[in-house]
């Protein structure tokens, strides 16, 4: 066994350039295949998440049609503040369940960027976001209406993304580079994602994010505008939102209209299908060429060296010695390629598919090499391949 191991390693060393090129070919194939699988699963995940959200009842969001110039005017005009306050009050008084989700902020800590996502307390349940936190945490996410200054003086409760589980402890109070304090009240599970209809093609990962409660400063027009467009209304009765539309019309404030998830879902699905067809066509071609490449390479690995194997058998190698060498080289090539894929993608569903594919390749190789090496007598191998 040790002798065979030593000889196999030496044999690979004799052909190191060729082995390296074959290894690169397999690594590229596996990584590309993994990427394609991952993309498909991401698209699938997007669809599932949106369908989960829209599963129980319709969800309405406000579509923003305002120009940047109009925004600037609205934000800087203090005379309009009372109008925004009125719309915000109407929204809060509406007897319709709503989710608030605003992902437009970020901060830095130790010069590392952290995405801040401000949410209402029902965000976790509605978006199926799980993690290591107690239900009491949700009370920390009650809607706040503090001034920006007051809010900055608060210690913000934070449910931190998975990446921070080894950096901070539960209950720890930390400070970002701007002096804002945060108290860690929970951590999310690994690879927690969400999607918004407006950004339908993207699956947003929360591993590096801080989730904080929503705060509305009713003296800040910009803040109130952000709040308005961060609301998602859960209702099958669109008439229940008529008060918001009516108030906005009367005040002649914002150019907006209600859109529902069903429409968004159609848009998302069409968009997703287009992407999947594009990716799928490209992916199928790549996958076919990759598999052909790997299979041909494996067959060539044995066929090219059949003469060498026959001479080794002439000199005293038995079938087991040669078979071990072939198996060892193949396992090294394919096994190390699988490890590289793991380094890129981690233990994901896409990577597990690659493990299965590599297992099938190895099984095929073992059977093929066994049959090929057994098929001819030593002397015929030398004659045919010499």
């Amino acid at each position, binding site marked *: 066994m040790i*002798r065979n191991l030593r*000889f196999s390693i030496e044999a690979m060393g*004799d*052909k190191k350039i060729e082995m390296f090129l074959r290894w690169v070919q397999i690594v590229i194939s596996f990584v590309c295949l993994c990427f394609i699988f991952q993309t498909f699963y991401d698209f699938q995940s997007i669809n599932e998440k949106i369908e989960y959200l829209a599963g129980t009842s319709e969800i309405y969001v406000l579509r923003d049609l305002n120009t940047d110039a109009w925004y600037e005017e609205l934000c800087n005009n203090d005379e309009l503040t009372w109008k925004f306050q009125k719309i915000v009050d109407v929204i809060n008084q509406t007897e319709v369940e709503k989710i608030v989700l605003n992902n437009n902020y970020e901060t830095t800590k130790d010069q590392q960027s952290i995405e801040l996502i401000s949410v209402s307390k029902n965000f976790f349940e509605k978006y199926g976001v799980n993690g290591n936190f107690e239900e009491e945490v949700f009370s920390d996410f009650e809607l706040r209406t503090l001034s920006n200054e007051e809010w900055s003086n608060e210690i913000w409760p934070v449910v931190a993304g998975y990446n921070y589980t080894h950096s901070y402890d539960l209950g720890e109070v930390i400070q970002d580079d701007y002096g804002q304090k945060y108290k860690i009240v929970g951590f999310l599970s690994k690879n927690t994602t969400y999607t918004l209809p407006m950004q339908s093609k993207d699956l947003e990962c929360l591993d590096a994010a801080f989730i904080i409660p929503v705060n509305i400063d009713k003296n800040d027009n910009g803040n109130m505008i952000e709040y308005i467009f961060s609301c998602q209304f859960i209702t099958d009765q669109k008439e229940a939102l008529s008060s918001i539309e009516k108030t906005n019309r009367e005040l002649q404030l914002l150019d907006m209209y209600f859109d529902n998830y069903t429409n968004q879902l159609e848009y998302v699905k069409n968009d997703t299908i287009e992407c999947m067809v594009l990716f799928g066509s490209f992916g199928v071609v790549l996958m076919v060429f990759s598999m052909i490449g790997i299979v041909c390479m494996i067959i060539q690995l044995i066929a090219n060296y059949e*003469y*060498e194997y026959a*001479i*080794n*058998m*002439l*000199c*005293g*190698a*038995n*079938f*087991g*010695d040669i078979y071990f060498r072939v198996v060892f080289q193949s396992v090294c090539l394919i096994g190390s390629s699988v490890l590289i894929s793991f380094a890129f993608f981690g233990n994901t569903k896409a990577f597990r598919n690659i493990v299965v594919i590599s297992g099938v390749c190895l099984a095929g190789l073992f059977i093929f090499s066994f049959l090929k090496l057994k098929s001819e*007598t*030593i*002397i015929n191998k*030398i004659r045919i391949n*010499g």
Partner: protein
Amino acid sequence: MKWMKNIELRNITKKYGKGENKTCALNKVNIGIDEGEMVAIMGTSGSGKTTLLNIIGTIDSWTEGEYYLKGKNIRDYSEKEKAVLRNQVFGFVVQDFALVPHYKVEKNVELPLYYTKYSKKKRKEKTDHVLERLHLINKKHCYPAELSGGQKQRIAIARALVNEAEILLCDEPTGALDSKTTKEIMDIFVMLNRSGKTIIIVTHDMEVAKYCRRLVKIEDGNIIEDVYK
């Protein structure tokens, strides 16, 4: 029956193919070869001489008959044990040299020693010894493609000898060589025979056969002549 010869083949028959396409390469061949003999097996192309040699070297199978090596029936050997025979008892020299093209000379000669328990140092010693004996020590870092036909054949002979094989099986060892090189190679075989090696040479060349003390003629799978000079 007492087995007195080192190599005893009794009623060996070898058939190829199936049904109506069956070809008989050897037909009830009986031959015994003693230790230290130098035997030439002659015949035309397709006569069965190479098949006979390959059966002796356990690199080909046979259909019927018994083959005894040093009194033990070869059928009693497992595949692993036959591999050990090829490593320790037999040395092969074939017409196209059978050298691994991407191994250097040193590694080609050392190949049989990889399947022994010798240390790396011991393997190197034995390889260098046999290369010196055949005046090839200065070629040990060359590839086979860089050598002449005669040098390649001497490398093949060195490989056959490196593990001190008792029996050399040579299939047309001079077939690809000119007359001068042929003489050189045959002189090596004669020298090895004088040192006690058993040498069996398959050839169609009478000039090569003249170096051997025993001539076995084979035709259509049958031995038609077996004479000692």
